[in-house]
């Protein structure tokens, strides 16, 4: 690699850093909102009364059947049309959060359903109410089960945050493209951006493995 | 007459643990030899060396005068090419403790696979042989059943038919009844007895002492990686020469 790339990288350091910051805040906000939503989705899928369960099942199936990019574009264009004026950042985060919620919802449902029926029965037998059963018996077990996969969902959200460049959110990838349009060094700068994403996601992946080891029930 | 199988000074190590510490054994055509011994004595390992499911570091195994698995060229011992080893493996048949039938193939297809792929037989010829051998083990009526639809004893009989259909020079049985429910053991042993009566050469690793007593022309007692004692079962089981064998026989049940 010749030195002009390093020069250009130095010149572009602030926009790129800002972009990285935006990428991280997109990811964080969509993970937080998506997880909160997703826990409710998961609970509704597992314990909800029939009509609610069907409604939520329809929601998750629809979201999971639609590409994230379509969610992002639809959120961006549709919200404005119906008079909700959100910037591209908010619209994009909303789309990613909805996407995240359907994944987390499935995770929560899978984790809760994997707990043997005997656990609930044992809790009932010692006289626990359902909220107590959930708080002390089911919840902790489901959390252990779902945590490693949830960390992977976080990595998915970081990757999905790049899609917001398409609706003009100045995150890392869009900043990179801007730098490329000025310097014409597409090879170097795409490689650099890819490397940054790799480092972040690889870190998350390793963290996920660590969590997996930590949450394993001693046996 | 030359020997069917000759094992000379067989040594086998897993890492630093030596499981076979110099085994010598010869076998003539038509002999039925049972190998007994406690677990960890090396009896299964010895069997698995004969068809190269295990590599071994020292000694030679020859079948019909041809060295199995290894060749020495210019003083250097090396593994034979995989094709040659595959060809040699087809000269022996093996039945496993866990049957290892191919679950995605019917009983007939299990028997036919080796005939078609290794013996290059046509489908019709292979099917006819499969019918013959499945009939022989009493499972002609189950010929198109899948392993998952058969009992353990039936699966093991199909596995024996699969091995024997390849027309091997020597059959190797590796604790073929150990994974079976007690009431299914006998049907499998009957099949093996039938093969013995036909004059098939067989090496049988087993925990069934009464069966070993009844079917074998010779018994080998393995002890800590060596042959502890061998001889006619009618003498060995009644008057063991070594204390080890006496102890082993006392701890095993005859039924």
């Amino acid at each position, binding site marked *: 690699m010749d030195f002009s790339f390093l020069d250009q990288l130095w010149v572009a350091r602030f926009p790129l850093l800002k972009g990285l910051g935006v990428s991280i805040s997109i990811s964080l906000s969509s993970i937080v909102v998506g997880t909160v939503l997703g826990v409710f989705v998961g609970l509704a899928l597992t314990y909800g009364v029939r009509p609610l369960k069907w409604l939520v099942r329809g929601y998750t199936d629809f979201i999971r059947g639609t590409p994230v990019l379509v969610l992002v574009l639809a959120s961006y*264009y549709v919200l*404005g049309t119906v*008079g909700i004026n959100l910037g591209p950042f908010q619209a994009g985060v909303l789309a990613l959060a909805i996407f995240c919620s359907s994944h987390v919802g499935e995770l929560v449902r899978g984790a809760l359903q994997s707990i043997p029926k005997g656990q609930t029965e044992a809790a009932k037998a010692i006289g626990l109410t359902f909220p107590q059963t959930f708080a002390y018996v089911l919840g902790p077990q489901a959390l252990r089960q779902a945590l490693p996969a949830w960390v992977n969902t976080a990595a998915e959200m970081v990757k999905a945050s790049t899609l917001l460049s398409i609706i003009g959110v100045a995150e890392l990838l869009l900043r990179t493209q801007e730098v*490329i349009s000025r310097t014409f060094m597409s090879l170097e700068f795409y490689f650099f*951006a890819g490397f940054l994403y790799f480092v972040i996601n690889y870190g998350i992946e390793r963290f996920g493995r660590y969590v997996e080891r930590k949450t394993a029930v001693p046996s | 007459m030359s020997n069917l199988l000759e094992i000379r000074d067989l040594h086998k190590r897993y890492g630093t643990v030596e499981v076979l510490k110099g085994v010598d054994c010869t076998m003539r055509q038509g002999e039925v030899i049972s190998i007994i011994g406690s677990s960890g004595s090396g009896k299964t390992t010895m069997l698995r060396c004969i068809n190269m499911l295990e590599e071994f570091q020292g000694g030679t195994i020859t079948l019909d005068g041809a060295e199995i698995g290894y060749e020495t060229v210019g003083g250097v011992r090396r593994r034979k090419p995989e094709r040659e080893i595959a060809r040699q493996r087809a000269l022996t048949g093996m039945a496993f403790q866990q049957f290892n039938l191919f679950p995605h193939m019917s009983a007939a297809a299990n028997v036919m696979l080796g005939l078609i792929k290794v013996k290059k037989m046509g489908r019709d010829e292979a099917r006819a042989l499969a019918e013959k051998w499945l009939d022989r083990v009493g499972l002609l009526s189950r010929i198109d059943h899948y392993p998952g639809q058969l009992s353990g004893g039936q699966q093991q009989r199909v596995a024996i038919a699969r091995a024997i259909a390849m027309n091997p020079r020597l059959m190797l049985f590796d604790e073929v009844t150990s994974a079976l429910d007690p009431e299914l053991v006998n049907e499998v042993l009957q099949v093996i007895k039938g093969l013995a009566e036909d004059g098939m050469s067989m090496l049988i690793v087993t925990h069934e002492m009464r069966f070993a007593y009844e079917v074998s022309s010779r018994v080998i007692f393995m002890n800590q990686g060596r042959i502890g004692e061998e001889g006619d079962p009618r003498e060995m089981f009644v008057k063991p020469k070594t204390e080890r064998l006496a102890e082993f026989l006392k701890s095993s049940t005859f039924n």
Partner: protein
Amino acid sequence: MTYTLNFSAVWRSFDLLLQGLALSLGLAALAILAGCAIGLITAFGLVSKSALWRRPAGLYVTIIRNTPILVLVLFSYFALPELGVRLGKIESFVLTLAIYSGAYLAEVFRGGLIAVPPGQREAGLAIGLTELQIRTSIIIPLMLRNVLPSLGSTMISLFKDTSLAAAIAVPELTFEARKINVETFRVIETWIVASCLYVATCSLLAALMRAVERRLAVPR
């Protein structure tokens, strides 16, 4: 707020959406087919005893899985020409998605390979089959049955990833939808119809995979 739904403009362009969908399916089919070949070879590398195979296979999977696909798509189309690799939009995208899906499919296949009991290989060896014969007649058929459920969901997610081709102006479903959106201003209708087409295709693919699963199920 008053917005009355009016689908007529979208229906007039419906054939464009269908053409887009057909292209999406074509892109996915080509990429997944190539990806299966790459994934199968890589999976055997991942479970190989030799580090010479395992290391590069692991590196490939790790790099691809941790890089956003949009970066890969843009890199192949805009940056590779600098290295003298000049591909059309569609070729570039199919190649990228194939390499991308190869990594994910490798992980799927690896799981299926590990689940095949070692006794199956030994039984194959014992009747004199070669390693290659064992792989084609025994290991791969059993592995495929093991992985069918996760293979289905991976394929569906790869099909959805064809929407990324819109970023380099490949006229697939998402690209056409966006075009109709901009031209007709029937924003809500366009995206409802486009999403429904994706959802319907995904459910159809899922049903298809379940049928294949039933068809290949080992009788018991």
